[in-house]
């Protein structure tokens, strides 16, 4: 491992430590029993098999949107449509589950695939607008997320709603379409396997395929990519379609794995969380499960803390924000990095000099 990548790991680790330290200091000042609270937050998720299961359950949707956003951001496209793709994916997954009668095993696969396609179409819109009209994909994707929410609410209340359900929710998802439980005593479902497959696929696509290479080159330096004959339009479209597809799959997997009815009347936020996951994973899908696990762990930890102490779980949002800032801040540890890079260059020169 080169010293620069060692430094990257060090920077990430330090960012996390500093962010947690800041959160603990805040807890110390506001809580009546700060040490019990901090203890709950750090060790709470390990207390029982069921609670640790919650961490894995929360990790699953984060992996999907995380891998999706990795691919979209790698092309240097700030398409924030993963939030909407996830929502629409869940919606279409529910519709397919309710309206298309199929035998089990095939049923969830079809529903998930359709959810993915819907998600892909969704992130395709900002990409297309960007290419055709040069309008900012960031702005149009933000607006589209709200449209996705209203559209979902419309379909729910006019086509899917079960009047007997009390709260606004669809009819019961048939058992043939639901993802089965993978590990006893938890709600961890077979979606975990799909999430792992998607991670491996995302890594191979982005780092081992020609198209993936083109996406990354175009993302790092569009001018250079253009001059070396890379088709920028193709790169943008493929990356955004694929990213949305994966986020959409995530939505339907989440719905079929964790819900008995479609009842999402607000955006769930996994698309925004994916920005944190992607930042932590340095846009590499291979690291997405690790960062998703970390994020899920501190959230469940904070949740447990809030249930038994006087600290509310939103403290985690401070931790997350600080982590993003420190990891993205180029100046953080920059002097140290500069030293290491010059050292490496010098040693390289020395060895070449000997030859």
């Amino acid at each position, binding site marked *: 491992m080169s010293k620069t990548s060692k430094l990257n790991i060090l920077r990430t680790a330090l960012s996390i430590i500093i962010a947690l330290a800041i959160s603990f200091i805040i807890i110390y000042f506001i809580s009546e029993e700060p040490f019990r609270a901090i203890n709950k937050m750090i060790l709470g998720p390990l207390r029982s098999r069921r609670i640790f299961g919650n961490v894995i359950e929360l990790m699953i949707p984060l992996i999907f949107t995380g891998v999706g956003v990795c691919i979209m951001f790698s092309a240097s496209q700030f398409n924030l449509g993963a939030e909407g793709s996830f929502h629409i994916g869940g919606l279409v997954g529910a519709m397919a589950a309710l309206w298309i009668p199929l035998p089990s095993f095939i049923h969830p696969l079809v529903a998930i695939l359709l959810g993915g396609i819907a998600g892909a179409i969704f992130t395709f819109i900002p990409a297309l607008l960007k290419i055709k009209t040069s*309008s900012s994909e960031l702005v149009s994707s933000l*607006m589209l997320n709200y449209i996705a929410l*209203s559209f979902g609410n419309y379909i729910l209340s006019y086509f899917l709603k079960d009047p007997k359900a009390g709260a606004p929710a669809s009819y019961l998802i048939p058992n043939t379409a639901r993802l089965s439980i993978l590990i006893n005593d938890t709600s961890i479902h077979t979606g975990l396997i799909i999430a792992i497959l998607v991670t491996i696929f995302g890594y191979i696509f982005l780092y081992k395929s020609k198209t993936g290479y083109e996406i990354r080159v175009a993302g790092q330096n569009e001018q250079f990519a253009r001059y070396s004959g890379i088709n920028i339009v193709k790169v943008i479209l493929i990356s955004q379609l694929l990213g949305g597809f994966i986020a959409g799959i995530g939505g339907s997997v989440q719905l079929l794995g964790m819900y008995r009815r479609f009842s999402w009347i607000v955006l769930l936020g996994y698309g925004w969380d994916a920005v944190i996951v992607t930042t932590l994973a340095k846009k590499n899908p291979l690291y997405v499960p690790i960062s998703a696990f970390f994020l899920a762990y501190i959230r469940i930890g904070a949740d447990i803390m809030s249930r038994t102490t006087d600290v*509310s779980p939103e403290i*985690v949002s401070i931790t997350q924000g*600080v982590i993003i*800032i420190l990891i993205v801040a180029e100046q953080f540890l920059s002097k140290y990095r500069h030293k290491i890079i010059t050292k490496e260059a010098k040693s390289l020169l020395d060895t070449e000099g000997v030859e």
Partner: protein
Amino acid sequence: MQSVFNIIFSPDFFYDVLRVTTPILFATLAATVASRSGIFNIALEGIMLIAALVGVIFSAYFSSAWLGLLFALISGGLVGLFLGFLVLKLKTDAILAGIAINLMAAGGTIFLLYIISGDRGVSSSIKSLVLPKFPLPVIKNIPIIGTILSMQNILTYVVLLSVIVIHILLYKTPLGLKIRAVGENPNAAESVGINVHKIQYIAVTISGILAAFGGAFLSMGYLSMFSNGMTAGRGFIGLAADAMGGSTPIGALLVSLLFGIADSMGNVIQTGIKIPYEIVQMLPYITTIVGLAIFSYSKKKQIEKLKSK
């Protein structure tokens, strides 16, 4: 249908349009000032949310809506400055820094609300105050126009005034010239002796203060309390409206009004014709996307034309 027509062409409708437009116009002007200096301020959403809560807390603490507003503005300016620090000093990507601020604001406001009031949703247990509505002398007696313009919240007048102030600031003052120069070409600006970072710090601070006005309006005018996530994407809409209005204060006014009309129209159509509420809710966002696409496309064509000459 006739009744919808009547409602739309009533003074009450336009009164409502101005009310709905106010926070969006603040956000749009905030986006304009920041983007003119070359910083894309996606943190507007979070700044508005923070200012909305700070206004509520301090207006209750001092029993004064004005002091509440003052502290809201200070909080907005500080968060703007913080964004400047992250982007300029720590060299953080502006979009990711903004997203980080938004995430912290969304959770942090709930966190703070819980510490202060024990509630996690709304601030109804805090006895906060509302900024006054204001009768305009002379104008209030003119039929129709009086109904539309008079008795609006004080901040609605402030925002209309801000359009003029920001226009003058950007186009008629040395600071405005510097802001535009820095945003247009920072290297060129630096070569003529402009302190680029200083100008950008000033611009994001002004941007933060403008956004804070919008946030304070939401919790101390539009509604009389803070509720979590109450900005509901208005900061983002401000960014869209700024892009659509070509980053000019006059453009900001026109596009925000368009958005306000689309929003108010939604409420009217609901009472008039049978269109599902959920579809009506999409209207402002669809308007924004279509408008943005048209504007960007015509700008793209313009640039191509200039290049071919």
